[in-house]
């Protein structure tokens, strides 16, 4: 699991990025969809109809697109988290736990603090990000101080975060009666748009008259995706334009040389894991402040962090790549539901498709081999 190895791989792919990676990824997506089609056909579903149902289910109404975006937002950001750590030589399997920490802190701050609107949301967000950053930095600290591999520590911290969150959710002061969730956050902390108004009597009355907007308002529209864009720009700037980014990348690529050059490698591990943790925490906070408005007692990992790994890897560990692959991911997941409701096809197809896409993005060499064969054939003709 040598990170240096990963980085070398990454830098190799970075070299290719401009000319080919995007194309390769598109080809991989194509192969993924074909694989899905074959399996659908094998199981007795018409693949064309199935994909058509999916496409209709994703694109045919504006609200579907909004659902897709809402679904994509958290995994875009956990994707950033994983990608950022990768770029600085660390493998953050812990986005899952950092997401949970961000979520629960946002839920607590959103309910217990009493602040004016906007400020409340910002404070809750900041606290959540701070807590998750500390959670991430803990893994960085263990690596720096004790040489504990971040893969182990982040896996362990994921489970600890899960149970800690459940403990908090179920503690008497926090738990909402007749539920297994925290109290709903206060309206002042919410970052969804028209969330309160749209279900008020007034709002409902207006909606009944404006059917188009009525439909449009059904999803939990929130500012998450805008924050995601801002965070993406921020990561890009940190990595490419700042001194901190220089430092973190240097450590990521060659920590011995960085150390020799005077960079504090241990501090760098911690900063990098703190930023990665903060990002995942931001995803959790946005989910709570904008969509769920509460934290529930989790019986298992929800998979935001693990999906983030796939998003980061398909996205070539760049912010823009994560953004696009996160959207794709969100669309597939949302569309997968449509596949089930419209066609009765099992939604596991989507995992298979995502796995296949990822599998083939890992193998530019194979794709290059195929494309060159095709070109050859063409030339022969």
């Amino acid at each position, binding site marked *: *699991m040598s990170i240096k190895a990963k980085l070398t791989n990454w830098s190799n792919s970075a070299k290719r990025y401009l000319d080919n990676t995007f194309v390769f990824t598109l080809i991989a997506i194509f192969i993924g969809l074909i694989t899905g089609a074959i399996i659908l056909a094998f199981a007795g579903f018409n693949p064309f109809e199935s994909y058509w149902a999916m496409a209709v289910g994703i694109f045919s109404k504006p609200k579907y697109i909004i659902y897709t975006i809402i679904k994509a937002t958290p995994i875009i950001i956990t994707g950033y988290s994983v990608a950022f750590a990768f770029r600085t030589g660390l493998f953050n399997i812990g986005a899952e736990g950092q997401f949970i920490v961000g979520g629960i802190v946002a839920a607590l701050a959103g309910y217990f603090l009493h602040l004016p609107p906007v400020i409340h949301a910002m404070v809750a967000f900041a606290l959540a990000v701070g807590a998750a950053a500390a959670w991430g930095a803990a893994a960085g600290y263990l690596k720096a101080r004790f040489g504990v591999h971040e893969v182990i520590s982040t896996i362990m911290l994921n489970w600890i975060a899960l*149970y800690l969150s459940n*403990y908090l959710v179920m503690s008497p002061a926090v738990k909402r009666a007749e539920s297994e969730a925290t109290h709903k956050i206060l309206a002042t902390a919410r970052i969804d748009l028209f969330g309160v108004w749209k279900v008020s009597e007034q709002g409902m009355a207006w909606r009944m008259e404006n059917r188009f907007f009525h439909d449009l308002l059904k999803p939990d529209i929130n500012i998450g995706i805008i924050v995601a864009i801002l965070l993406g720009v921020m990561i890009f700037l940190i990595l490419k334009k700042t001194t901190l980014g220089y430092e973190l990348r240097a450590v990521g690529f060659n920590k011995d040389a960085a150390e020799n050059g005077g960079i504090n490698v241990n501090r760098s591990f911690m900063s990098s894991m703190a930023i990665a943790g903060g990002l995942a925490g931001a995803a959790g906070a946005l989910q709570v402040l904008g969509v769920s408005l509460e934290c529930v007692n989790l019986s298992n990992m929800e998979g935001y962090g693990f999906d983030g790994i796939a998003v980061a*890897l398909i996205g070539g560990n760049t912010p823009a790549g994560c953004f696009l692959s996160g959207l794709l991911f969100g669309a597939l997941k949302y569309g997968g539901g449509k596949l089930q409701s419209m066609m009765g096809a099992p939604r596991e197809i989507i*995992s298979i498709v995502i*796995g296949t896409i990822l*599998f083939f993005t*890992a193998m530019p*060499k194979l794709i290059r081999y195929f494309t060159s064969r095709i070109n050859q054939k063409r030339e022969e003709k």
Partner: protein
Amino acid sequence: MLSDIGFILGTTLMYATPLIYAALGAAISENSGVVNLGLEGMMYMGAFIGATVGYYLGNPWIAFLAAGAVGALVACLHGIACISFNADHVVSGIAINFFSIGFALFLCRIFFDGATMSLSLNFDQKMPRPFNGAFEPNSFGDLVFNQYATVYLAFILVLIVWYLLYKTRIGLRIRSVGEHPKAADTLGINVSRVRYLAVILSGVFAGFGGAAMSIAIVSRFSPTLISGHGFIAIAAMIFGKWKPQGAMLACLLFGSAKGFEIFLGASGLEIDLGIFKIGMSSQILAMLPYAVTLVVLVGFVGKAVAPSAVGLQYEKEA
């Protein structure tokens, strides 16, 4: 008292077993230089195939072998990607997890009439327990040693893998391609062949690990049966410093922490420290195995060094 210890030891063994299989797989694969994050998916497939073959054929050993075989098949994909086509090991491994988890559930629906759980094996079609009846029920010996054959097999396999890696020709070659593939290549060793062998073996072991769950610990497959075991096994392998025996100890540590957790969970949910009592909620207890692992790592385990070429693709000619 003795029976409490017996219970904790028995639970330790039960918990550690599937992890030991997968951790052995991780150790073999990484010693050959290939990172295998796909273990989770391979265990998943193994658990499903084990339960399914067991259900339809009624023979636990065939089921167990079939689980190993399907693990090998999935591992082949990982091998093709990482060894033949220079894929990034991490990406391929994560891809395999998505793929196999989806595929196992998909197949399960086909074989079990739309359900994502298989049907239960008959009790007498599960793995045998070689020492069943050899001890008084509930005696110390019974609690510790009345385990499924998969438990004993896991420990035998630790020994075999240790022997294989450190005493035999193929082991020397596996480790050499993990440390310095080019050196091995210049000595006429077929790096790809050795790595394929190691990766496929790791898949076999992961498959066994899955089946050890679905045809021994319980008797059917369900979608949450394997949840994070593969990753914990990888952590255990790193914890064990890339050695099979070390990985085994790490798994046992983890298992015993689980045993303690359950034991403490029964004893009234309160720890009396004389001066004051700490209420131990079951959520706090549930953190125990993970926290213990971290504490032990920090306190007792020095820095470990991975095989130098782990995660690197080897291309014969640039």
